[in-house]
């Protein structure tokens, strides 16, 4: 039995100071805004080029793109430029950003201030998932307190650097977590992804150079500045440096958010009594979704459970992703077709409708999976699903190839491919039984 434990960096304060971690007093009493002070003494460009790059920080929103590289795409001399914070956490069973916003909002604001200083932006927008009522309340209070205390606003800490922060609440669309849809929504248009190019770094919000970063990514920044990028990079494994928060849910004994050092195995995360605590009633893992609803699945095999939490390894070895860090665990009583249908229903519901394959394909997949999972399947339906999926995501690979504008459509195919990879016989048997 493993005794793996959390490595608390960005969740340290909110775990230690459960009474006041979200207040300015609680924040500054535990070292808050010291990193901002330190950063403001640095050359702005050096923060990205040296600290963030050396830290090997990669986006925590799902795609895992290197943050320093993303910043470096901003064209020189084109101002104003904007930082947009993606707080529209909507990936099913991902709930880490919500915790960070509700329980340590100043940490996020400090990260925003550091990032804005580093990229030369004076106006940052936080796009917050609309359902985060408490999060909005606390973040808005924190923003006001930080303004009053001089951590935001004009001439921050006497540095001459100004930053205005706007908090915008979403209206309940998963697609607005996709960065270009988020920008359109922020501008007041329908939340639908844009055609790229141009990329947001070149023409993003209001057609200005824009960096879009995830909440957890930005919350990590103060710690990178405080520790130094190289020190941070000592945590983790290979190109997956540092820690990440994993939201573990499903048939585990201790569902919840766990910040662990990357490189730990899935088995440790799922079974450690300090972490998710194993499967209910001592049952076994039938399969699990390692990185949010968009990812393909892994099974309870030793090979899969012993895989490390390494973004590149799982991608290259199993074609799955760590994504947004949502680990959904299913025990041996689970009907995988039913899980696939429920996921498909989510994607069909959340498809924005802009492009044909996603608009029509996600709905079709949902209907077929409904039939299969509700005893009305035909033996040929799994192959039909795969071909429909192939018309959305040609080759059925990960990372996705896509006939769509954004990855939402291909995301809906992941479950189908997983059924094919691991549960084909079971699904076809189900269909035969009813045929």
């Amino acid at each position: 039995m493993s005794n793996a434990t959390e490595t608390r960096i960005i969740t340290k304060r909110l775990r230690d100071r459960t009474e006041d971690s979200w207040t300015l007093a609680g924040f500054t009493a535990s070292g808050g805004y010291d990193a901002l002070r330190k950063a403001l003494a640095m050359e702005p460009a050096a923060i990205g080029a040296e600290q963030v790059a050396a830290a090997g920080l990669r986006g925590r929103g799902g795609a895992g793109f290197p943050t320093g590289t993303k910043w470096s795409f901003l064209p020189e001399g084109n101002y104003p430029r904007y930082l947009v914070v993606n707080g529209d956490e909507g990936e099913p069973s991902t709930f880490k950003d919500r915790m960070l916003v509700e329980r340590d909002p100043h940490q996020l604001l400090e990260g925003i201030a550091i990032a804005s200083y580093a990229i030369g932006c004076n106006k940052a927008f936080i796009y917050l998932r609309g359902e985060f009522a408490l999060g909005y309340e606390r973040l808005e209070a924190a923003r006001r307190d930080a303004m009053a205390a001089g951590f935001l606003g004009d001439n921050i800490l006497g540095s001459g650097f100004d930053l205005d922060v706007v908090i915008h609440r979403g209206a309940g669309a998963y697609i607005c977590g996709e960065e270009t849809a988020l920008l359109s929504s922020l501008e007041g248009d329908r939340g639908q992804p844009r055609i790229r190019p141009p990329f947001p770094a070149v023409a993003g919000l209001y057609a200005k150079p824009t960096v879009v970063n995830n909440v957890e990514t930005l919350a990590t920044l103060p710690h990178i500045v405080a520790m130094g990028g190289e020190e941070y990079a000592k945590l983790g494994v290979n190109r997956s440096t540092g820690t990440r928060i994993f939201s573990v849910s499903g048939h585990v004994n201790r569902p919840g958010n766990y910040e662990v050092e990357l490189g730990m195995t899935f088995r440790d995360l799922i079974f450690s009594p300090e972490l998710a605590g194993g499967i209910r009633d001592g049952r076994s893992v039938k399969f699990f979704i390692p990185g949010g609803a968009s990812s393909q699945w892994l099974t309870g095999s030793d090979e899969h459970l012993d895989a490390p939490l390494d973004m590149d390894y799982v991608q290259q070895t199993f074609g799955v992703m760590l994504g947004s860090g949502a680990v959904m665990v299913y025990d041996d009583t689970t009907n995988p077709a039913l899980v696939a249908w429920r996921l498909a229903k989510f994607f069909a519901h959340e498809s924005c409708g802009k492009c044909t394959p996603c608009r029509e394909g996600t709905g079709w997949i949902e209907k077929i999976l409904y039939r299969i999972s509700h005893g009305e399947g035909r033996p040929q339906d799994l192959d039909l699903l795969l071909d429909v999926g192939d018309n959305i995501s040609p080759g059925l690979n990960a990372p996705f190839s896509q006939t769509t504008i954004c990855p939402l459509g291909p995301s809906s195919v992941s479950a189908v491919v997983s059924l094919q990879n691991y549960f084909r016989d079971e699904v076809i048997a189900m269909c035969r039984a009813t045929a």
Partner: protein
Amino acid sequence: MSDAPQKVTVTIDGREVQAEQGELLIKVAQDNGTFVPRFCWHERMKPVGMCRMCLVEVDGVRGLPPACTTTVTDGMVVSTQSETVKKAQDGVLEFLLINHPLDCPVCDRGGECPLQDQTLAFGPAESRYVEEKRHYEKPIPISDLVLLDRERCIQCSRCTRFADDIAGDPLIDFGERGGQMQVITYPDDPFVSYFSGNTVQVCPVGALTAKPYRFKARPWDLASVETTCQTCSVGCRGSVESSSNRIVRMLGVDVEPTNHGWLCDKGRFGVEALHAEDRIRTPMVRRDGELVECSWPEALDAAAAGIQRALDLHGPGGVALIGGSRGTNEDAYAWARLAKGVIGTDHVDAQLGDGLPAELVLGLPGATIPDLDRAAAIVLLAPDLKEELPVLYLRVRRAAVDLGVPLVDVSALDHGLSRYASATVRHLPGEQQSAAREVAAALAPLTEGRSGPIVVVLGRPDVATAADATVAAAGVLADLPEARFLMALRRGNVRGALEVGLAPGVLPGRVSLESGAERFTAAWGRVPAARGLDATGILGAAAEGRVGALVLVGADVTDDFPDRHLARAGVRGAGFVVAVDANRTEAVAAADVVLPAALWGEKSGTTTNLEGRVQRVARKVSPDGSPMPDWRIAGELALRLGTDFDLEDETELQDEIAAVAPGFAEVDAILLRRARDGVVLPLADHRDELVLEARRIPVTDFSWEPIAPAEPEVEAAEASDPDAAPEAIDASDEPRPAQVPAAGLPDAATITWTGAEARPTPGRDNYALRLVAGRRLYDAGRTVSASPSLAGLVPETALRVHPQEISRIGVADGDPVRITTSRGTQTLALTGDTTVPLGVAVMAFNLGGVGVGDLVDATSVVTDLRVETVR
């Protein structure tokens, strides 16, 4: 213009083609013979990459980029037909069809449907979808003219993008998301747009249908011919389509110089008026006080006798002609020759007291519509283009919004283009001249660093203010550097009528009566001795009994002339009235002889748009009864008055005009037949714009798209060689009967306008309101009132004033008040409107019933209203 676009080489399906850097791949492929299937992409709209039908493979690019959002780069290697691409095309088409109702047998689009056509060419033969399709209530009206079938919709956004990006009427959008995404209007806010019919035309399926055309025909039963719309003087190219001798549909044809494929709804749906039940079908003469039907010879004899009697009594000056601006150039020329060359009168006016002097229209340096795109700036001193010349409004809007051309708005009131103006000069009604003096200062900062002409769109903003104010302003604007004028005159062929001399003081081809006297005496045998009266003058003279015979050529003077009192007095006072018309107007009812005229769609010929572009109109149907084209009627009357025009068809007239009218030099029947985008007058100044095609190209069968004209066989450059152009054409199949002596006519100098006397605008006393009476697109005119689909769209007459004026008068909003002008007193309701300046009253002209026509005195410079409470 030194940075010419860089040429790049692209390989498409193994074939190397040349293109310009930055062009869209889908367009480059199409221009080089490779059709990449598409639904959402439209040449006149920005690409959105939504339908995913045009996915292709590009070497070195991951995945399948859409050809419509991919710009070409040098060395790009593209495959549009690989197995991967075909699989994607199959997939997208299958997706599009799974929820499509496939009710093609009862769909207007069936047979000319891109979804059908591209499924046949690129799609799978079968669907694997066994589930229930989406269902919606259908169809639902989204406006008075357009219906939406959400089951057929493929969510390509062509209609919403047209409404938003092209028309500037963002009243339709998408609602819901995913599979439920559907085109919606906003609550209680229907898609009211003068351009709504274009959404039906650009719809790649049968989701949007036009009420006037629904279930009228199957596409394969339609016969179509390319023509020019004559509803207003923009001269939009269109395809007029008929079934069983009924015109059932008009579609826009995409040509670069004029309309880019768009039409306004009045032009598109007004074709219904052609088949109105109450058209005049048979000639009539007045016997015992009653108009009775008769034969053509009887009617013509009676008309000629009446004219002859007036000649005998009063001499040539006793005969007058009003109208002729709604027919063809050939019609107008025949009337001009009859009036000026046979009868010898110069009391001739194609305009109905609401236009500008012919010398000004013909004599100012002209701009073309494409000049708007490349102008240093556009100055608007004109009526509301959205109401009067809608497709010109689209072009000016595009120049301002998409091309960044600065717009200076000189106006008394907000209008359709005001919100796009870079600078606005507001003036009191009638004070255009002083406003014009401020234009140069307004232009200076806007044109800094910009090249190109200053295009002035010039017209009379309203009918309650005489031409004088606009004439005076034109004198100021003509002094702007590189000023070129687009004349915002409204009636379909008013420009053509003026070009062929159907106005006092001018002769065909932009020559004055004096300078052309010798030439036209040689050509016609006689010309009028002295300058005649305009329409206002003619009606005034007739009212005083000085007009022995009045010929009204499609001139609905009691409704379309600004001063109904004078019009009635004129018609009543004229000794003898000949009405050449298709419709039973008040003046027709008072006429002594009624000659039924064929209308647009029933006769071929040419028309001249507001730029001076001569374009062909086509005959598509035969009129019921015995209406004749005007030129034939004029010829018959001339014959009875002693001159044989000896004309067999309109091409002979075209040759005669080219021979005698200096402004039409070289513009003969053969050139007109071959000039793809028409000929801009005078040809000598616009030779490089001429594009010739060797033969008439029938309308393509892709009529769901704006129809692209066929590629010209002869390049413009070749045509610009004066030795090569018209002479090089093989005329063997084109009989060219000699008419008027073509060679050896004396020269005549063409008109240059150098300013004119204008009556000053009188001051307004503080108790009066000055009337501004613009036109609305949907008015009580024949096109709208005889088109069942449009007739209900005419707005209510209302006199709008600033709310402060209402309280000053001491009444409540909506209360009736007594309005007094020199023409008498009327009782009308007042409506408050904060956009109306103080001291001004606004009422649209000719909306039916009591209105502007009962208030305006056409002989006054302005119309001031006394407003009193009703006691």
